[in-house]
C-alpha cells in the first residue's frame, strides 16, 4: 500500500513532539511493509530544508492570504496552499506516488489534499491525524499574546478548518481519549486512539559523562521542554509566587529550548528562589538527555495548557524516575494515575509541596510489574494498531468506491 503523509515540518531529524510522532508513524508504516512518501511545507524558516518539502513561503506570501499571520503561520499556510495556484502546484509537484491513503497531519494541509485528489483524479482513503484540538490550543496561545477578540476569531477559523478535516476524512487518528471524544462529535467514521510514545534507550557512557559534567553530584529534578509558549506558561503558573520546594543543595534542571526562554523571562526573578534553584542545560544531545534523565531524582511536567498528549510525559515515565505532573500533562496516560512513583497536582501550592515531598524520598525502585507497565509508553506499543487501522480504512474506502 502506498501512503502519502502531508505535514508542515521535516521529520528526518525530529526534535519536537510533532516531528517525533510523525517520524514514528512513518517508521511504523515502513515496518509493516508499506511504501511511504512524506511531503509538506516547512512551517517555519527555522526548519532545515528536506526532500519533499516546499520551503517556508515567507511573510509576504502569507500576508497575501491572511493579513495578520503572527502565531497563525500554519493557518495562513493552509489557505495559501489550498487557494493559490502557484503554491498549490509547487507542493503538488513534490508528490511522486499515487497514494492509496493520504494521511494529513493536523488540519493545515487538508485543503490542499482535497484539491489535490480532485485535480489528480484519484480516490485515496483520507485519514486525518490529529495531534491536538487545535482551535482551543491556538486560542489560548493567541490570548497570551494578543487581544481577546483576535483570539476568538482565530479559534473560530481554526475550528472550521479542523471540523472540515475531521468530517471530510475516512478515518481519524487521535492522540488522547479526550481528543477522540471531541472528534467524535464531528464524525462517525472510524477512529483510532494512538497515544504518543517514546523510543527505548539505554544510557551510553558518553551520555552519562556529559550528564555528570552538567549536574556534578547534586540531587536534581528535571524539566524537559521546548520553547513552545504553553511550556513557559505552565512553568510560571506552577512555580510562580515563590519557590520553596528545593533545598539549597538541590536544583531544577531545565533541558531544551524552554531553558533559555525561562531564564530570560523576568518572571523567573519575580518568584522568590526560582532563579537561584534553576539550572539551564539548554538543548543537549539525545545521549546527554538520556544521561540526565537517568541521574535525575524526579521529572516534573508542570503543564497547564495544550491538548493532545505530551511526548515528554512518555519520556518521563520511561525514564523510571519519579514523575510529578499536572492532570494536563498526564492526558493520554491516565492509566498511570496512581501508579508507583507518579504524583499528580494541579494547584501550584500542591505542586510545589509535592515536589518537596518527592525530593525527600529515596530514589525510586520500580517493581517488575510497574516496570512492565511503563513499557506501554514505547512507540512500538502506542502505535501498534496503526497499520491495521490504515489498512482497514483503505479497504472500506475501496468497498465504498
Amino acid at each position: 500500500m502506498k501512503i502519502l503523509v502531508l505535514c508542515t515540518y521535516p521529520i528526518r531529524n525530529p526534535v519536537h513532539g510533532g516531528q517525533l510522532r510523525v517520524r514514528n508513524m512513518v517508521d511504523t508504516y515502513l515496518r509493516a511493509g508499506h511504501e511511504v512518501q512524506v511531503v509538506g511545507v516547512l512551517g517555519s524558516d527555522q526548519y532545515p530544508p528536506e526532500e519533499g518539502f516546499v520551503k517556508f513561503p515567507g511573510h509576504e506570501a502569507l500576508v497575501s492570504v491572511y493579513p495578520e499571520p503572527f502565531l497563525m503561520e500554519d493557518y495562513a499556510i493552509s489557505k495559501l496552499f489550498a487557494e493559490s495556484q502557484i503554491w498549490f502546484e509547487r507542493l503538488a509537484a513534490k508528490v511522486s506516488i499515487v497514494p492509496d491513503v493520504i494521511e494529513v497531519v493536523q488540519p493545515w494541509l487538508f485543503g490542499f489534499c482535497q484539491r489535490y485528489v480532485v485535480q489528480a483524479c484519484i480516490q485515496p482513503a483520507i485519514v486525518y491525524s490529529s495531534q491536538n484540538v487545535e482551535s482551543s490550543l491556538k486560542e489560548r496561545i493567541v490570548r497570551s499574546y494578543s487581544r481577546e477578540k483576535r483570539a476568538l476569531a482565530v479559534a473560530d477559523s481554526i475550528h472550521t478548518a479542523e471540523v472540515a478535516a475531521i468530517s471530510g476524512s475516512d478515518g481519524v487518528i487521535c492522540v488522547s481519549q479526550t481528543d477522540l471524544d471531541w472528534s467524535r462529535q464531528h464524525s462517525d467514521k472510524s477512529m483510532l486512539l494512538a497515544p504518543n510514545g517514546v523510543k527505548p534507550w539505554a544510557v551510553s557512557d558518553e551520555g552519562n559523562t556529559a550528564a555528570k559534567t552538567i549536574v556534578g553530584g547534586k540531587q536534581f529534578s528535571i524539566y524537559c521542554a521546548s520553547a513552545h509558549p504553553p511550556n513557559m506558561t505552565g512553568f510560571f503558573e506552577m512555580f510562580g509566587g515563590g519557590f520553596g520546594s528545593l533545598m539549597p543543595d538541590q536544583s531544577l534542571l531545565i533541558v531544551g529550548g524552554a531553558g533559555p526562554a525561562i531564564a530570560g523571562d523576568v518572571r523567573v526573578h519575580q518568584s522568590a528562589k526560582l532563579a537561584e534553584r534553576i539550572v539551564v542545560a539548554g538543548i543537549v544531545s539525545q545521549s546527554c538527555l538520556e544521561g540526565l534523565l537517568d541521574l535525575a531524582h524526579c521529572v516534573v511536567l508542570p503543564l497547564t495548557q495544550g491538548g493532545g498528549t505530551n511526548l515528554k510525559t512518555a519520556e518521563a515515565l520511561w525514564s523510571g524516575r519519579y514523575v510529578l505532573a499536572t492532570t494536563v500533562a498526564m492526558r493520554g496516560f491516565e492509566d498511570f494515575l496512581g501508579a508507583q512513583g507518579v504524583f499528580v497536582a494541579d494547584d501550584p501550592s500542591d505542586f510545589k509541596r509535592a515536589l518537596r515531598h518527592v525530593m525527600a524520598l529515596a530514589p525510586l525502585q520500580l517493581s517488575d510489574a510497574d516496570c512492565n507497565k511503563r513499557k506501554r509508553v514505547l512507540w512500538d506499543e502506542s502505535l501498534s494498531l496503526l497499520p491495521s487501522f490504515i489498512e482497514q480504512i483503505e479497504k472500506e474506502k475501496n468497498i465504498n468506491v
Partner: protein
Amino acid sequence: MSERQPTIWINVTTSANWHRSAVGIVRVERELRDNLRKLYPVGQFKECIWTGDGFSVFAAGAGEAKAGSNIEVLELPAALPVSYLFPVLPKRQAVIAIAQGAMSLVPDRLRPALDRLMRRCKAPVVQAMNYLAVRRYRKQAKIVASEPHTMGSKADKDLVFSHPFQAGDVLISVGLDWSWTFYKDFYYLRTREKVKIVTCCYDLIPVLYPQYCVGEVASMFTSYFLDIAEGSDMVLCISKQSEQDLLEMLDRTGGRKVKTHVFPLGDNVPSGGGSVSSEVEDVASEPFILFVSSIERRKNHEVLYRAYHLLCQEGKRVQLPKLVFVGMPGWGVGDLLKDIELDPLTKGMIIQLNHVNDAELLKLYQSSLFCVFPSLYEGWGLPVGEAMSLGKAVLSSNRGSLPEVGGDLVCYVDPWSPRAWADEIYRMATDEVWRTEWEQKVKTQYQARTWADAVITVKNAIQSIESSGF
C-alpha cells in the same frame, strides 16, 4: 569524662552596628542577649558577630558607651569592616533620605523652589532606578541563560565562611539578618556543621503587604523566609499571627516546614536614663492622646488625622485633647504630613515628637489620657502592650496580631473607618467614666509580660532542640 556542654551563641551583629536609640528588633536582640546571659552558666553563653567573611567571637569591651540615654553602644573591634558611622540603606531609601535631608536643611524661603525641582526630577530619577533594576534582572537572566550551566556549587565544597561554633552548639540569630548575607549559609551550618540554628520571624508584612513597604520587597523577603526555614532548627515567632503567616507562606511555596516557637515580647517600658526635655514637658502639661509608632503608611496615622478633621469640622475641637505622634517619619507619608501641617481645621492639634529617649517615652505614656494604635497590620504591637502595662486605656485596630496583645482589654476600632475612630476618640476623650472603666479593666486584669519571662520560654524551646537529633 563529662560531656561537653554545647555553647549557646547569640549573633549580636545588628546591635553592634546600631548607633541610635534601640528600636523593635534591636531591642529584642539586646533583651534576649541580656536575659539569656543570666540563665546560662558563665562560659556557656557567648556572643558572636558577622565580620563580612565569617563569624567571630564578640565581647562587648569595657569601652561600652552610652548613646543619648541608657542605650548601650557596643564597641566594635577596629578590624570589623561593618562598622560604618551611618547604616547602609537600600539605594531607593538612600535617595529618599538625601531628598529629605536636602529639604530639611535648606532655608524656609528656598523650600518651595526645591520642592518644585524635586517634583520635576522625581519621574526621571524613578525611571533611572527602574532602568537599573531591570538591567540587574537582565544581567542575572543572562547569567542564568548562558548555557550549559553546571551545578558545581556548595554541594561539593566546604562551608564558605569561618566560624567559632562546634557541632551541637546553638546559634541564636534574631537581628536584622536580611541586611546581611550570612543567613543564606545557615542551611550548610545546620546540615554539615551540625550547629543548631534559631532565628526569628517578626512579621511577614513585606510579603503580605508590600504596598506599605519601600521597593519590591515581597520577593526578597519571601526568599529570606524560605532561606531561614531551610537553615533553622527553630524559628521564634513573636506572635501566633506571625507564626501562622510564616507557616502559611511556607506551605504555599513548598518551603520547609520548620519548627516554630511563639514568644510574646516583653512589654515593660524601659525606665532608664535620659532627661525629659522642655518640649516633652510642655506637651505633657496638657491633656493629649498618644500614638507611639514610626510614621509610615501601614501604621495608619492617616485615619487619626481624618478622624480629627471630622471632629474639628463638627465643631468639637475645643473638647479634643492634642494628638501626639511619637516616632520617626518614614517612607510614603510626605503628603500626609503636609496635609497635617496645612489643614486649618486641625492646625495645632496634632504634634509630632521625634527622637524621644526612654525617660521621655515613659513620661509621655504616663501623662497621656489614653493611647491609640490604628495600624493596618502588625506582627505584634508592642506599644499596645506598653500602654497597658502602664494602666492606660487603648483604642486599637483589630488587625494582625493586635488582638493577641490586647485581648478583651482594649477597645477595638475598624482601622479603615475615620468615622469610627472619630466617635471612639471623642467618647474616650470626653466621657471620663467610660475611660476610667477601661483603665480599671486594664489595671486589674492586664498581666504585664516581662522580658525575663519571655526569655525563659525561649530557653526552654532551645532546650527542646538541643536534645533533638540531627
